[in-house]
């Protein structure tokens, strides 16, 4: 398996951090989601305004040429144009699309980008979107080591993969170690297997459970466990991790 490209940053304490860099795929996925959201929002605003004006007797010509058109058209344009900078600022380097794609924006030092950096990043979309379909930005992402577009190069930002929030697992670990007396690595494997139990095929999870149980207790052999039903294997794993059950 290829090693994930990493952004390595020296932490403020001397302990370094590493962020997995988002590639052109996750970046494009996030952009497509965001593009649809902002387009739908802008169109919804336009439609709602148009319907409202028609309700009050304005005809189409007046809608497009007159002041009411300005009041409805201008906010729609603002929604479309300010969607990225505003949300990246308010959501600390994320947008709904980035959140769904599991990516977020950080500075070269791993911190939250400033308002200035976000503005510069977004102004440079003018170049990145040239000559169409974000071709310049996409090529830039493919050829740069940190997979960044020109806006990111100028602003000093990098799009990284959001690391999974495993804070719950961290909180449970000490009590599991204390209650089971098992090797922490075995506890991690057993916990993960129990979490993924419903999504695995019966044969696969039974095989994994048998291997794990024989490692925990050498008195159990694969042959003796072969006859143990699926539900019992799961229960034996749960019994080993009392706090997880």
């Amino acid at each position, binding site marked *: 398996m290829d090693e994930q490209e990493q952004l390595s940053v020296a932490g403020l304490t001397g302990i370094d951090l590493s962020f997995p860099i988002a590639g052109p795929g996750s970046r494009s996925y996030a952009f497509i989601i965001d593009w649809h959201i902002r387009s739908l929002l802008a169109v919804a605003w336009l439609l709602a305004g148009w319907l409202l004006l028609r309700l009050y007797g304005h005809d189409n010509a007046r809608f497009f040429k007159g002041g009411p058109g300005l009041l409805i058209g201008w906010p729609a344009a603002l929604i479309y144009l300010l969607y990225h900078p505003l949300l990246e600022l308010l959501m600390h380097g994320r947008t709904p699309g980035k959140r769904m794609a599991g990516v977020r924006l950080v500075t070269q030092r791993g911190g939250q980008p400033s*308002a200035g950096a976000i503005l510069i990043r977004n102004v*440079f979309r003018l170049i990145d979107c040239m000559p169409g379909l974000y071709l310049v930005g996409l090529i830039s992402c493919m050829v740069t080591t940190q997979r960044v577009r020109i806006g990111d190069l100028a602003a000093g930002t990098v799009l990284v993969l959001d690391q999974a929030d495993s804070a719950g697992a961290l909180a449970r670990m000490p009590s599991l170690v204390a209650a089971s007396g098992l090797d922490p690595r075995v506890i991690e494997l057993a916990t993960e297997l129990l979490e993924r139990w419903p999504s695995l095929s019966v044969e696969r999870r039974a095989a994994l459970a048998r291997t794990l149980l024989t490692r925990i207790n050498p008195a159990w052999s694969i042959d003796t466990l072969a006859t143990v039903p699926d539900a019992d294997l799961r229960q034996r794993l749960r019994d080993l991790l009392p706090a997880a059950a």
Partner: protein
Amino acid sequence: MNTPQLNATSAWIRSRERIWRQWSSGRQARPHGLRIEQAQSYVDQYRLLASDLATARRLLPRSATTAALESLYAATHASIDRSSRQTLTGLRTLLRVGIPASMRELRPTLAWIALLFVVSSGAGYWLIAQYPELIGLVASSEMIDKVEHGQLWTEGLFNVAPSSIISVRILSNNIAVSLFAFCAGIFFGLGAFYITAINGLMLGALFAYTRQHGLDGELLRFVAAHGPVEISVMCIAAAAGSAIGESLIRPDGPTRRESLQRAANRIGPALIACALLLIVCGFIEGYVSPDPGIALRVRALIGLGYWIVMLVFLRGGLHAPAASKL
């Protein structure tokens, strides 16, 4: 893992129960509006987290526990390593310090860009004065048609669409052109030069062409109120773009990338100033410029007055602190 090491690892994990539970419960809450002692405690947590992560990396490399600590450490780091959220103070600093500093840096480049604009305007004027048939290169057939019928293309603008619409259309177009002049600087400054030269060439050519049809006075009337600031802003944006290009040609950092980032950070405030100045320009161009009832003297006064306001604004004079006013 041998037995003593396993025991040590288990003992260490058990000893972290209270603190890890505490960190995990506070994981979702972003620190905001903390008092000094709370902020200090948050920084202490960051240090403890770093220490735990170092231990976990040694005792449990490539484990879920280490990954969870990595994730928590990264999130805490991002919360600490960020710029101040004091919006009003930041805005005041931008207006008093950021914009003037940025303009001071751009001054030499701005002089060259202004010279390029003047030279290209002269070239455009000379070109069309000598070869009027080349006007098709810079003006649309509709514009040419109107001028040949003794009318400026701007005439009737006031009757076709309301001022508010014209203002917004002009404003958005001007902001887009200025931002593009800045961004085009990424092509080693050539894009900014090109946009300046093209705009100068067009202005000169249109003056020459309208002069041939006795409409140059009308064109001057139209641009007198908004032109001085609009042209200046375009030159500032192009100078900012050239500075971006220069940062790539002559990097002032270890890499071109760092040099570009530094330049963009330093010059960014000038771009914000340009956008702010263009908002007022859009209103002048929408409400004053197309109105035939406003005399040239008034237009010139508005143009000059706004240009002086622009100079004071770019020098930070409009937002000088109270002490410096004494």
